[in-house]
């Protein structure tokens, strides 16, 4: 049994006195596609920021590959940071750089690849998300969905072992979104990349997720954990089933597919 790549233990997440999540524990296994679900504002992005070390836990701890990013020394931290790539909910591309430069930046800093090689790698990453023709464009010159895809390409620049994607398919058309799912599966299968994805898109959750957890704003914790199709059919919690059947939680049950 291989050790999990991310371990979350009794994590309490809070902004000042406002507690968002309380006493949350779960594991992400190596090489799986792990999806975080939940209603808007329930703390998915907050949880992700704790996983990647942007916010420190009020209580509890988060271990990535056995290392705690919050107590790590500077050198350890750098090693840990190179293990994952992040795509932020808003894209967060650097506006004064072209898409290609956005992708090459990390390579420039952390590898000794010659410029021609960096550019080719960047264009290949952009090609993976269907943007090879836009490598010379600035983020403000491409659409919102394209910015999202470019942000995914940037997150993949250093071939991290874990990719965190905050709502990757929001704002994409169904076809591109399906292409993205395929990309996730292909990277997952062929390169063994672990994915931690925040998503609402039911279709893509069914397509890619090995396991999901569902957060709840009211109980400030995990209300369900498991395989999506299984949760849909067998979860006792009405809110969870409502989520999977896309209906308001207090709507009368039955009559759905």
């Amino acid at each position: 049994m291989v050790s999990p790549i991310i371990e979350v233990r009794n994590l309490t997440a809070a902004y000042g006195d406002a507690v968002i999540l309380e006493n949350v524990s779960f594991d992400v296994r190596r090489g799986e596609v792990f999806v975080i679900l939940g209603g808007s504002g329930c703390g998915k992005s907050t949880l992700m920021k704790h996983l990647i070390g942007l916010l420190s836990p009020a209580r509890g701890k988060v271990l990535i590959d056995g290392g705690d990013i919050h107590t790590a020394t500077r050198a350890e931290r750098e090693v840990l940071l190179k293990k994952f790539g992040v795509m932020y909910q808003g894209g967060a591309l650097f506006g004064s750089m072209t898409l290609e430069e956005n992708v090459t930046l990390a390579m420039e800093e952390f590898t000794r690849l010659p410029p021609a090689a960096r550019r080719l790698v960047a264009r290949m990453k952009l090609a993976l998300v269907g943007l090879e023709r836009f490598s010379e464009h600035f983020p403000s010159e491409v659409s919102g969905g394209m910015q999202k895809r470019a942000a995914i390409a940037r997150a993949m620049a250093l071939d991290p072992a874990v990719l965190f994607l905050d709502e990757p398919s929001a704002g994409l058309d169904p076809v591109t979104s399906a292409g993205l799912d395929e990309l996730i599966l292909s990277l997952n299968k062929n390169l063994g990349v672990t994915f931690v994805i925040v998503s609402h898109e039911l279709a893509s959750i069914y397509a890619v997720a090995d396991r999901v957890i569902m957060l709840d704003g009211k109980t400030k914790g995990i209300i369900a954990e498991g395989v999506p199709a299984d949760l849909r059919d067998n979860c006792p919690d009405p809110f969870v089933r409502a989520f999977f059947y896309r209906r308001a939680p207090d709507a009368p049950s039955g009559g759905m597919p």
Partner: protein
Amino acid sequence: MEFNRKTGCLTLDETLEAAEVSRRWSLVGGGKSPREVNAAALRTCDGAGLAFLWSLRGPAGARLDGLRPEIAALLRPFDSLPECPAEPVEHDRSLLVHIGHATVQILADTRAQIEFIGEFTSTALACCAKPRLVRWTDMWLVAQRAGVDALVVAGMVSFLTGMIMAFQSAIPLRQFGVDIFVVNLVALALLRELGPIMTAVVLAGRSGSAFAAEIGTMKVNQEIDALVTMGIDPMRFLVVPRVLAGFLVTPVLTIYSNALGVGGGFLVMMGLGFPFMALWNQLVSAVAMSDVMTGIIKSLVFGVLVAGVGCLRGLQTGAGASAVGVSTTRAVVSSIFLIVTVDAVFAAIFYAIQW
């Protein structure tokens, strides 16, 4: 990885990653590139490794033997990737082209300024007719930040300038035995020229830049678009309160700096042994009402200019975080340039009408 130069055969190891690729990249770019690649051992391969394989296979035209299907699958999405265009070269253009571009730029900028002035004037007139349209609370807030908060720096600059001028002029004038005329020199120079200019420059550095950064950030975040689609005119909502605040605050700030500047001069003269009343009488006899008014009229114009240019540069902001920095710089530079230019025009006018 091992490259046999004679047979042109490259044998890959189990892994192909960035560190190794960086060392061996010359194989795909240089003249002597492999003709045959033995990839049977290759098991793991990162993005850089894929780029290496792709370049070997594509541009270098090598045959890949024994590539595992997993890795072939990773390479498949790039089958139709066009080759990298050559590094974009900065071709230098002739001087004539540069001059042409610069001229077009200046003309476009002038046009934008004239449009801005026109639009502002019409909005301001509408606001005059209906004062309710002005956002007074915003105006007071801006006036406080641009005015009250600037008291210390504007005061310091003027006070010290007054002292410096008194010190510098006391010695040459004493040689002629007319050192009481230091008062005339300090007072006239400050009231007519230096007071308004220094205040306007301080305002440009403190507030013009702030306006540009504030409005520029709103522009970058599409907040200006949001205002427009809500039916709120950014000119009325953002520009009018700021320009009005500049118009009201600058003269007051100028009078205050003038007073402190003359005070600085007085302090030096008293230190040199002149009684206060002698200095005061000299001041009253030297300064006419027209001198005071000249400075105040100028400062009104400067206030409008600095606030207006700050807002204009903010609204002209392009995309991205660095664009805000560019606008801020442009706001300060254009303001200082305009202050000096307009001051020169004033000097000519006042000379012509003998004020």
